[in-house]
């Protein structure tokens, strides 16, 4: 029955047959536009489908089409029509093709902009013909007329479309002998954006993004002709929470990020696929790092989550990873608060011995909804063993109607699915407080949270027999812990999160952890093996699969199913 319904729903895709560089290809009649609505397939989209890239500046799949840069001009031929509105045929029965020419000089081609011209049946598209190349060279030359030739000191070098296309389609020498128009440089467009108007090719991607995607109509083109410049209204700043996306969009070195500019040459950086942890949206990101130092986050395309964008706040929230007060040592404190730094083997062994003596029901666990699913699964095994009361610390902030969620924990739904936290996160914390003050709870395990922030004061903590703290940054609770285990930032380990909408997404390791800090799942597993009789899988993918198999919410999905874009589960 279900199968029949599905069959009925599948309609044959209407197609159009066109010729791309001599070979006949069939492309869908319609293709999604920037908002996902079907529009007649354009030449650019059709060529992309058959693996032919057409150079472009102003076109972007996630922005409305402007058609102003002219870089995507291609030579196009259409079937010639007779007076009877029927195609004129060649002797062999094929349609006669008429190439576009300039009306005032038929020896010159009239190109069509691939980004805004829909395909038509039997259209012939030439992405690589002499005429197409000639048009490209001409456009590129005019774009370079007033462009400074100083790629060596430009921060965009290495990821500049102007540089790339000049290599492919440009000329080695400029024919331009006149004086270049000088325009404003180092324009402080906003708190995070610097603009160099001389490098701008006026593609208006930034204007369209901020107007149509971020819904803050803040930018425009002022002045006329050669003096055209991108600008914000005098006296106002370009400062919405999505401004840095314009830096990614800018095909040239005009818009640069004040945070990243001149920090690192892009070709030296390693890119790692990861997830932003600043809220529960879980925007897909690329982490740019070199020699264990993180330089930038960039959004990674994922239409199910963040399209091609991310917020500025999330993008710049990486510096804490390299903070000086990172926990780098395993510490054991005695009754006199004297601490000794030990190796992992020692701390796991001594901690396991202490934990083995704990009575069931006397343990409370406060985990973090910033921990990965795999870590939370191991914590859950510990919790089940001790019949411990568990919860996570809620982290509420402001959301917006675009990408930012008010839940600032990246893995709240993971914590809920695994059973560490409940619908209302933090509902158990008063219970834990009460248990400690009444002496029912004698051991507190705190993973990745500063418990003094949720109202657990020294007086309360002093009533505990055993306080175990694992964290990334130093805190008051860390100073009080009997056992302190240094954890890793998500950039230093692998794992997975479940986002606000129930999408399971994985993140990969970009940099090494400092000092003795170690991926939490590694030592958590050792602890589980020592304390309980369980033998969880000893690889991260294995742990994920085990967690998924033992947890109905995950429906048995496998690590490999996550791919780089994640997969949805029912939450």
């Amino acid at each position, binding site marked *: 029955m279900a199968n029949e319904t599905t069959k009925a729903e599948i309609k044959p895709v209407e197609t159009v047959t066109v010729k791309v560089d001599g070979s006949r290809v069939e492309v869908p009649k319609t293709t999604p536009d920037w908002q996902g609505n079907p529009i007649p397939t354009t030449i650019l989209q059709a060529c992309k489908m058959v693996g032919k890239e057409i150079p472009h500046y102003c076109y972007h799949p996630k922005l409305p089409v402007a058609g102003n840069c002219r870089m995507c001009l291609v030579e196009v031929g259409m079937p010639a029509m007779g007076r009877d509105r029927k195609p004129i045929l060649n002797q062999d029965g094929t349609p006669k093709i008429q190439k576009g020419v300039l009306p005032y000089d038929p020896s010159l081609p009239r190109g069509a902009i691939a980004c805004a011209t829909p395909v038509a049946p039997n259209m012939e598209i030439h992405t690589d013909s002499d005429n197409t190349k000639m048009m490209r060279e001409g456009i590129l030359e005019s774009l370079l007329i007033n462009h400074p030739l100083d790629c060596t000191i430009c921060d965009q070098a290495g990821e500049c479309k102007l540089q790339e296309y000049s290599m492919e389609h440009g000329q080695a020498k400029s024919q331009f002998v006149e004086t270049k128009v000088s325009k404003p440089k180092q324009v402080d467009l906003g708190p995070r954006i610097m603009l160099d108007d001389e490098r701008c090719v006026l593609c208006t991607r930034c204007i369209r993004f901020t107007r149509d995607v971020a819904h803050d*109509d803040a930018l425009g083109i002022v002045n006329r002709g050669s003096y055209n410049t991108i600008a914000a209204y005098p006296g106002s700043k370009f400062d919405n929470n999505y401004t840095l996306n314009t830096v990614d969009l800018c095909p040239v070195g005009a818009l640069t990020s004040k945070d990243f500019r001149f920090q690192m040459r892009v070709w030296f950086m390693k890119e790692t696929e990861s997830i932003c942890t600043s809220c529960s949206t879980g925007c897909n990101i690329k982490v740019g790092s070199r020699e264990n130092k993180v330089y930038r986050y960039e959004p990674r395309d994922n239409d199910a989550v963040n399209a091609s964008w991310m917020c500025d706040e999330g993008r710049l929230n990486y510096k804490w990873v390299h903070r000086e007060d990172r926990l780098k040592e395993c510490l054991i404190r005695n009754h006199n608060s004297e601490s000794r730094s030990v190796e992992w083997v020692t701390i796991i062994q001594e901690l396991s011995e202490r934990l083995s003596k704990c009575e069931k029901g006397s343990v409370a666990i406060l985990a973090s909804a910033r921990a990965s699913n795999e870590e939370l699964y191991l914590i859950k095994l510990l919790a089940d063993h001790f019949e411990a009361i568990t919860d996570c610390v809620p982290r509420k902030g402001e959301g917006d109607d675009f990408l930012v969620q008010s839940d600032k924990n990246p893995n709240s739904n993971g914590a809920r699915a695994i059973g560490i936290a409940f619908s209302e996160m933090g509902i158990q914390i008063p219970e834990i407080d009460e248990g400690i003050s009444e002496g029912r709870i004698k051991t507190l395990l705190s993973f990745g949270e500063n418990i003094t922030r949720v109202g657990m004061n020294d007086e309360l903590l002093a009533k505990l027999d055993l306080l175990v703290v694992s964290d990334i940054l130093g805190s008051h609770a860390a100073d009080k812990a009997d056992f302190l285990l240094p954890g890793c930032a998500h950039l230093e380990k692998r794992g997975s999160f479940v986002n606000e909408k129930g999408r399971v997404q994985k993140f990969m390791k970009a940099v090494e952890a400092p000092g003795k800090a170690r991926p939490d799942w590694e030592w958590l597993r050792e602890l589980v093996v020592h304390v309980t009789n369980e033998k969880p899988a000893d690889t991260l993918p294995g742990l994920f699969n085990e967690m998924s198999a033992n947890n109905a919410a995950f429906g048995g999905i496998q690590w490999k199913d996550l791919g780089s874009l994640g997969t949805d589960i029912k939450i």
Partner: protein
Amino acid sequence: MSLNIPQKLESEIEELITHYPEKRSASMMLLHALQEHFGYVSKESIEWIAKKLELKPINVHELVTFYPMFRQEPAGKYVVKVCRTLSCALGGSGKLHKHVCSKLGLDAENHGLQTSEDGKFSVEFVECLASCGTAPVIMCNNEFHEGVSQEKADTIINQCP
């Protein structure tokens, strides 16, 4: 500085807006109206128009910077526009412009609108004023003068009260 727009002008502007299917389309008319009233388009005018047409100020600012006919600074009491397009150029408007400038103590080489020291006259070398048959032509505020010789220009200027 707050903008003081008389009730009559405002109701005229509101009526103007109704001429267009979209409010935004009235931008140019409103700019002309406010420039005519205040003598130039101030920042406050731009913001007032943007608010009136439910736009962002940058949208109006773009227009003001695009069209040379919109002034962002006050001009003199009399704005003398000398035509520079082909017919007038052939009819000697270059010399005429130079003559007018030197009479008013201005440098003809300067670009754009310039105002005499006493603030009485502004001179602008503009594109076609649409009377090619009677070149060279000048406009002094809204008065049109055809076949203007240097002597005639002197008279026009001298007759300005």
